């Protein structure tokens, strides 16, 4: 979960013309880095307020498991928001796909792997339905997905026959709630006690992979004569990221090993980060959201891009639906209520722009984690739920105000 945070650029050679703008160093971009600083501060704040309970092994595990489905939705949502659209139906789709998976596995006894695939296909079909109206018919996504929010909730009730369906087969429950097995047993970590070796190895592999890719990227940059961070700073950044990953992994290893959803989530974040930054398709999403007409006139197939991000959202919502149902061990009619709002909030806290064209997968995940930590931390100190909602609302507003404020300041300076 690391990206190169900011890229330093050599200032333009002074050309002596009035047209040259101020050579601004981009070593620290407050608009993009602010979110990570805010996350760190919030973690520190709640660690202090909870007397360290926030970072207890079991609590870290809880935060991840309890919020995995919203984080998965946030990944799909950020793509849609980057493209300049919105999806209000995600929560209802979570409920409907959860219900479909329950009917398949519990009522029809379809083997669980097939049932999961069929559920994802159903999610894709739902996404295709909405994407068709948005992309090819030009109906605003707000309207299409508002209609979807109502319609898919209604279909959920129909599918379930107004009652919860469960229990789910064990593998699904393990995926949603369970942990990797201690295949290699425990090792002692001195004062920290015993920890699962497999989890620790996974952490070490992750850090090694991260180091390798960052090093290669830096070498490639240098090879192309681009400016790179000085070696000391580079090592410092990498060491910081590695320490963070290892700290989380050690805490998890001391509890019950790695949650399966964390493994899944890590794969999704890495995959979608690559998709958005390096794939042609990902670039086209930014192009469509940044300026639809310019994208059209640059040969981007804007309708197809819009269609496929909605299909993608449907699939991710179906995945979240299965995980949520598996976690509760029951598909219920009220599943996923307001999930879409949490996902949208995560995207905007994570730095997405309301007008589209701007946003990052890692940003949306960080935004989701900020809300997760606020939720968790406030409940640990016994704050009533209405106060949690109030704080979350204010954090969302503050994040967007900050974004607009930094943008305006940048605009004035130019």
């Amino acid at each position: 979960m690391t990206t190169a945070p900011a890229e330093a650029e050599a200032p333009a050679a002074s050309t002596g013309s009035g047209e040259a703008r101020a050579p601004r160093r981009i070593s620290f971009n407050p608009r993009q880095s602010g979110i990570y600083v805010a996350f760190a501060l919030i973690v520190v704040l709640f660690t202090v307020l909870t007397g360290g309970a926030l970072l207890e092994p079991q609590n870290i595990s809880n935060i991840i498991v309890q919020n995995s489905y919203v984080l998965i939705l946030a990944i799909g949502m950020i793509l849609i928001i980057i493209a300049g659209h919105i999806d209000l139906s995600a929560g209802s789709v979570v409920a409907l796909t959860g219900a479909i998976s329950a009917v398949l596995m519990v009522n029809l006894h379809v083997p669980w792997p097939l049932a999961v695939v069929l559920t994802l296909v159903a999610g894709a079909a739902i996404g295709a339905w909405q994407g068709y109206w948005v992309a090819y018919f030009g109906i605003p996504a707000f309207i299409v997905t508002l209609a979807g929010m109502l319609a898919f909730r209604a279909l959920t009730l129909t599918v379930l026959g107004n009652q919860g369906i469960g229990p789910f087969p064990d593998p699904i429950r393990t995926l949603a709630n369970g942990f990797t097995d201690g295949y290699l047993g425990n090792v002692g970590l001195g004062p920290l006690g015993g920890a699962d070796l497999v989890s620790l190895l996974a952490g070490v592999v992750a850090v090694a992979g991260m180091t390798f890719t960052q090093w290669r990227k830096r070498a490639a940059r240098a090879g192309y004569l681009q400016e790179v961070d000085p070696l000391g700073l580079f090592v410092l950044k990498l060491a910081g990221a590695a320490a963070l990953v290892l700290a989380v992994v050690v805490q998890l290893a001391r509890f019950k090993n790695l949650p399966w959803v964390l493994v899944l989530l890590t794969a999704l974040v890495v995959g979608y980060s690559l998709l958005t930054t390096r794939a042609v398709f990902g670039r086209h999403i930014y192009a469509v959201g940044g300026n639809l007409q310019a994208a059209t006139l640059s040969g981007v197939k804007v309708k197809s891009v819009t269609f496929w991000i909605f299909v993608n959202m449907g699939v991710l919502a179906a995945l979240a639906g299965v995980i949520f149902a598996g976690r509760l061990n029951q598909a219920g009619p009220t599943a996923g209520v307001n999930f879409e709002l949490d996902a949208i909030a995560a995207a905007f806290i994570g730095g997405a722009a309301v007008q589209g064209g701007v946003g990052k997968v890692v940003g949306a995940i960080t935004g989701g984690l900020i809300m997760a930590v606020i939720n968790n931390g406030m409940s640990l100190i016994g704050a009533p739920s209405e106060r949690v909602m109030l704080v979350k609302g204010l954090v969302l507003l503050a994040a967007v105000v900050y974004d607009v404020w930094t943008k305006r300041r940048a605009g004035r300076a130019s």
Partner: protein
Amino acid sequence: MTADLLRMRGITKTFPGVKALQDVHLSVRRGEIHAVCGENGAGKSTLMKVLSGVYPHGSYEGEISFGGEPCEFATVRDSERRGIVIIHQELALCPRLSVAENIFLGNERAKSGLVDWNRTNHEAGELLRRVGLRVNPVTPVADLGVGKQQLVEIAKALSKEVRLLILDEPTAALNDDDSAHLLDLLRGLREEGVTSVIISHKLNEIAAIADSLTILRDGRTIETLDLRSGHVGEDRIISGMVGRDLEHRFPPHEPDLGEEVLRIEDWTVHSPAQRGRAVVRGANLSLRRGEIVGLAGLMGAGRTELAMSVFGRSYGTDISGRLVKDGREIDVRSVGDAIRHGLAYATEDRKRYGLNLVEDIKRNVSAAGLGKLARRGWVNEHEEHRVASEFRRSMNIKAPGVLSVTGELSGGNQQKVVLAKWIFTDPDVLILDEPTRGIDVGAKYEIYSIINSLADAGKAVLVISSELPELLGLCDRIYALSAGRITGELTRAEATQERLMHYMTQEQG
């Protein structure tokens, strides 16, 4: 006591890292039309924002006196109360509201909180008569053309009892008729005692209308010239603006013509808005490798419509005709097809159709040619960075780096990014629609050099421009378009402004 209505003295305005204005002086005499010109980024707009209170008193150094009294405006409202009204390049009208509502927006003719519609429409009618606009005051502004909208803005200014009218590039988006009308109106207002400051790139207009001229360069006042004598020529003004003598506004170029690369045959395009109305009628054009061809025409002649319909049917319905590329007929149904067949079209409206303003230079440069940088759907970012850096260097794009956001660049540099984007697709034919609109003289020269080098590289360039001197200075051959028809074709040797204008205004049944 003094003839000066406005005096700005020692104005210095600093932004983080930049001195936008440095000890600028501007004195405007009562009742004159005073032009302000300078290259993009010279500080004209900043100066006007200081004057009108967009930048409040205290955020700059220096003194402003208006009508003999010192001014310390905290907001735009303060300056408007004193009779200083600014009309920005991008008009600030609400398209869905009526002309009358727009004129009195924020200044409503109301009695005890309720709008007095009779008075509103009646007074609006009188103001419209003053600016020579014959429309019903209840017409929605969206139904008017840009030229008429400009007049509505002026009517709005008059409603505020304006003493100093500031116009920022008022004719940039207007055709010749509308421009002429606007200039006449300004002369009329001068008779009525309204003082105007006009910011313009169009030197012939300045020469035609202004009494005096202040030239800014690099945030400083260079000089103030008295134009009433009529002895100050365009070349004199240009040399003041660029700080060097521009003997030639166009770089020299010897064409090296090759084979015919694109032929457009019997091309007819219908308007998507009005069914059955043809906007391009049976046009025939031919372009050779290494050739720079001009397309001249008045507003509404169908120039952009012709270009965009050829470029992957981006405009129009019911398109008929043939495209022949390198001797073979090609079928171009989408922008993707057009790019694959080696066509490129750089739009006249770079902010709306050309650039992703929230993205950096790098990603804008690669936007149309991303496929060239990708293997199996994955982009080589390092190569992309190299390509963009190369364009930044070769085209002299002034920005801190290729990661600078294009929305923060000046017009000339944005235009270079648009050109870089299309050059990177390595086209055989480039259609450049108003490639120098709204950019300063120095950057224009650079754009002309780029166009020449494209022709030297064996590409055909079709230049659409409203500025006839530009077409005459740049093109090897010029087509004239009138009401959707090609009405004339002139070689470089034959072409004059008069002959072109003759064809451009020719109506064929």
